[in-house]
């Protein structure tokens, strides 16, 4: 097998056009990396206060803004409250300027003012401080998702769906969340760790903005706007706290036009209005690190052509007879070709994607969604592996079809085309997700860096960089296609006359 691998590698390196093709793949990766960097470096001139989003205790970028009715809690203590009501109100859309412009077209229908956003939140929170991003534990009623216990932004536990009574109990370094339908029988939802020492404890209300996103063949539309949530609290009791109830707007947006939110005391409770959210940042719409690797589809196309030609030129010239005369074991020849093409394209892909990441980052200058080093390694190695396996797939398709043009068309149709149609938002979201589950293009999931959060409402569609399968799961789809194509190719080689 060693001699056979040397033979196939000699074949590859001795055709200059193929070696040049590898260089072209690298250049294309870099070209698209620079293009992606240049595209995102052009920002509007308006104020965009705040800069980078705050980061949670584990470094995840987060949204941390809410109305907080609080008292200091020096040590252990318990808070109990009943959330009587949680509603949402649309803010009026911005007025058109007074420059005689024609009136804006009628607003599309929105949910009624009484309906809270699905992830509007009203409940109890203990938080290490009022600095955005500081650790916390909270139990809350939500618009559509029942009672939840959440802590430190990324952790989310479901509680009883129809409970209205909430309780947070702090004991040493632990916070325990409870919920109850009647205030008598309590269900424990979960626990969270919170450092000892003085923390702030109290009520909070927050609601993410309203978002509707439609994607159809050839276009998209999105509507949305800020919403104010109103939480009505009653039967509030607190033990262990000191001082008076104070209202603070955490993570207040300093820009103009901030909605008027606050809290008013009502009987044994409060009515609190709030905007914002306490959750991981969505990241779908912002710049993402994998945009530096967007040239992957172009490199894949070039390397797939190489993979196809590595086989089909032998058929075209009759050289395949010389090959099978030298090595009668045809499956071994196919295996050797696959190994050689896979190894060469993996190396090329590794160089190309590592360089594209570095150059793309240097050109961009802006801050993409922050990505752990392990994830950066995964997208670089994953992209190289994607290119390598796709090239092996091309070898198998070339062997099956024996014609260069047909095989190249088939590979492009199955890999790069579904990817482009899906991520460029040409296909509607649902077909796009199915395409990225079923076709070899699913493997582009290895490039996804922004995580999906069940507790954050946003458009988790390919157009925003979200793949329907996990990174290595998507890669496995490509591997399955490749294994099947290789098996078919091996059977055909055995049956056919050379």
């Amino acid at each position, binding site marked *: 097998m060693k001699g056979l691998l040397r033979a196939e590698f000699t074949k590859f390196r001795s055709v200059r056009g193929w070696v040049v093709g590898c260089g072209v793949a690298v250049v294309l990766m870099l070209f698209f990396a620079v293009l992606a960097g240049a595209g995102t470096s052009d920002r509007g001139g308006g104020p965009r206060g705040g800069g980078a989003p705050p980061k949670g205790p584990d470094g995840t970028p987060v949204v941390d803004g809410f109305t907080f009715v609080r008292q200091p809690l020096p040590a252990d203590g318990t808070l109990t409250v009943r959330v009587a009501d949680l509603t949402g109100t649309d803010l009026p859309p911005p007025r058109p300027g007074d420059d005689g412009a024609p009136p804006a077209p009628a607003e599309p229908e929105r949910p009624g003012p009484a309906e809270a956003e699905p992830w509007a939140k009203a409940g109890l929170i203990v938080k290490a401080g009022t600095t955005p991003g500081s650790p916390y534990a909270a139990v809350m009623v939500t618009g559509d998702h029942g009672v939840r216990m959440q802590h430190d932004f990324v952790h989310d536990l479901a509680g009883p769906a129809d409970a209205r009574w909430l309780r947070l109990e702090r004991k040493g370094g632990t916070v325990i969340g409870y919920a109850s339908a009647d205030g008598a029988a309590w269900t424990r939802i979960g626990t969270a760790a919170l450092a000892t020492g003085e923390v702030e404890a109290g009520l909070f209300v927050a609601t993410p903005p309203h978002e509707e996103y439609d994607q159809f063949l050839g276009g998209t539309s999105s509507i949305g706007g800020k919403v104010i949530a109103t939480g009505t609290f009653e039967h509030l009791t607190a033990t262990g706290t000191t001082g008076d109830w104070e209202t603070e707007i955490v993570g207040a947006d300093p820009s103009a036009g901030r909605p008027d939110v606050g809290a008013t005391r009502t009987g044994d409770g409060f009515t609190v209005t709030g905007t914002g959210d306490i959750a991981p940042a969505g990241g779908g719409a912002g710049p993402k690190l994998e945009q530096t690797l967007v040239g992957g589809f172009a490199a894949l196309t070039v390397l797939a052509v190489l993979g196809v030609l590595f086989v089909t030129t032998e058929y075209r010239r009759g050289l395949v007879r010389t090959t*099978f005369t030298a*090595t009668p074991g045809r499956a071994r020849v196919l295996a050797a070709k696959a190994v050689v093409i896979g190894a060469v394209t993996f190396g090329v892909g590794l160089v190309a994607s590592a360089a594209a990441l570095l150059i793309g980052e240097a050109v961009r200058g802006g801050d993409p969604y922050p990505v752990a080093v392990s994830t950066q390694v995964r997208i670089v190695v994953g992209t190289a592996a994607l290119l390598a396996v796709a090239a092996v797939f091309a070898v198998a398709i070339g062997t099956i079809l024996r014609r260069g043009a047909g095989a190249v068309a088939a590979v492009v149709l199955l890999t790069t085309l579904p990817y482009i149609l899906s991520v460029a938002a040409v296909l509607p979201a649902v077909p796009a997700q199915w395409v990225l589950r079923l076709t070899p293009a699913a493997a582009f999931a290895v490039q996804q860096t922004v995580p999906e959060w069940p507790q954050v409402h946003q458009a988790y569609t390919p157009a925003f960089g979200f793949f329907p399968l996990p990174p290595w799961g998507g890669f496995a789809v490509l591997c399955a296609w490749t294994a099947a194509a290789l098996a078919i190719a091996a059977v055909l080689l055995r049956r056919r006359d050379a």
Partner: protein
Amino acid sequence: MEATIEVSDLRKTYGSTVALDGMTFTVTPGRVTAFVGPNGAGKSTTMRVVLGLDRVDAGTALIGGRPYRSLRTPLRHVGALLDASALHPARSGRDHLLWQAHSQGLGAPRVDEVLRLTGLADVGRRRAGGYSLGMRQRLGVAGALLGDPPVLMLDEPFNGLDPEGIRWMRGFLRALAAEGRAVLVSSHLMSELQDTAGHLVVVGRGKVVADTSVADLIAAASADRVTLRTIARTEAMTALAERGATVAVTDRDTLTVDGLPADQVVTVLSQASVPFSEISAHRATLEEAYMELTRDAVEFRATEVAG
């Protein structure tokens, strides 16, 4: 390993076309065996079957008693040239040989050796796409020699060669056979194999029509035939015809006499006082012998059909 090719009762059809119809012959070492027949007779198909490239419906083809596909490094057992144009035009001739060498566990020194043997040492590093057909034939022969195999099989190696190339190829094939190798050379032009082939396998319509040694064939075709040069053509023809010979005019002053040995022709002409300037036993060319043979084969086939 014994240097032989044994083909026995190969049968293969493509749809309704019969390509091989009981092809059977053996190639033995030490001589060049010519594999001759019109285009489409099944020569190339037989060679592909021997090399394990094409499947057959029935029959076996063995190299030194073993099926080709069972050979671990087949180029060390059989060297083959099927199609001199089977090259990647962008790859140099040397690299074309190098990958084949690697596949057999051979190295670059052997490649340079066969390039020298075939007179391609100076052009080995040039793109094969720029080679003339003659150079491609030499490169194909170089590839067949890579593994120094005891059996060689060349399909139409004379195609595209100039007269000098044809002479080189003939000498090369004779030398290889003289080293004790079994050499099978196909051709559709018998004249190319003049003075080269020691044995002849003639095929038509997928089976062997004749399997004979070239010496026997030429002797049979030349038997009892005399070439006569005379200025008295008419008198000579009359005198010889009276004694039962068949006489054919081949030139203005040359006759071919069938049915009388040379000494009797001399006696007859002397008795009739017919002058002649030269008399010689005729030696048939390989091509003439081949034509005679195939004519018989055609007749044989015709009677077979009639019967």
